[in-house]
């Protein structure tokens, strides 16, 4: 969804939420702290997703230091800037998205390469930061 926010919208099946835990989560059941706060009766499980308010959400523990940093430095945006009472969203910033896609574990698909090119063309990438993130 972050890619859709910064670039053009595409059909997506679920909403991925990358999470960083304050305390070390159980190694074999890292999502337990979240699952315990979302009772199944109210938030039905659908395979790897939890349905929240009609949206299949997949929680992903940050899988690398880069993913964790991307979450910590996420951009905060108004969901609807025309509405003063709009909730805000935390969305992974474009440079971090590009770095995550281009990193070893990022699965750089042709579509993602195109997105990176468009984000670069639009001036949304911080090239120095990107270099640093990819060399780290």
């Amino acid at each position: 969804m972050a890619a859709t926010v910064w670039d053009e919208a595409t059909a997506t099946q679920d909403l991925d939420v990358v999470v960083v835990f304050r305390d070390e989560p159980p190694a074999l059941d890292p999502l337990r702290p979240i699952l315990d706060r979302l009772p199944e009766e109210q938030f039905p499980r659908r395979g790897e997703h939890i349905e929240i308010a009609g949206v299949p959400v997949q929680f992903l523990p940050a899988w690398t230091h880069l993913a964790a940093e991307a979450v910590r430095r996420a951009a905060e945006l108004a969901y609807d800037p025309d509405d003063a009472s709009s909730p805000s969203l935390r969305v992974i910033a474009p440079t971090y998205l590009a770095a995550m896609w281009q990193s070893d574990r990022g699965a750089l698909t042709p579509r993602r390469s195109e997105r990176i090119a468009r984000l670069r063309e639009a001036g949304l990438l911080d090239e120095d930061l990107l270099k640093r993130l990819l060399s780290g």
Partner: protein
Amino acid sequence: MADRGRRIFAAKETWHREQRALSPKQKVAIVLELQRREVELNRARAAAGRPVRPMTEWKIVP
């Protein structure tokens, strides 16, 4: 011909710029519409015996 190509490319660039300027709420509305179309296409794919693409329509209002 080159001029036509340039005009098409410029139009595409404009379209991408407009897309980027949309709010998250507007983007969600587009995602919902794309999901609806994909599910519709899946019906046609299934009817034609072709593989379908996994897609779920979110039950929300943007």
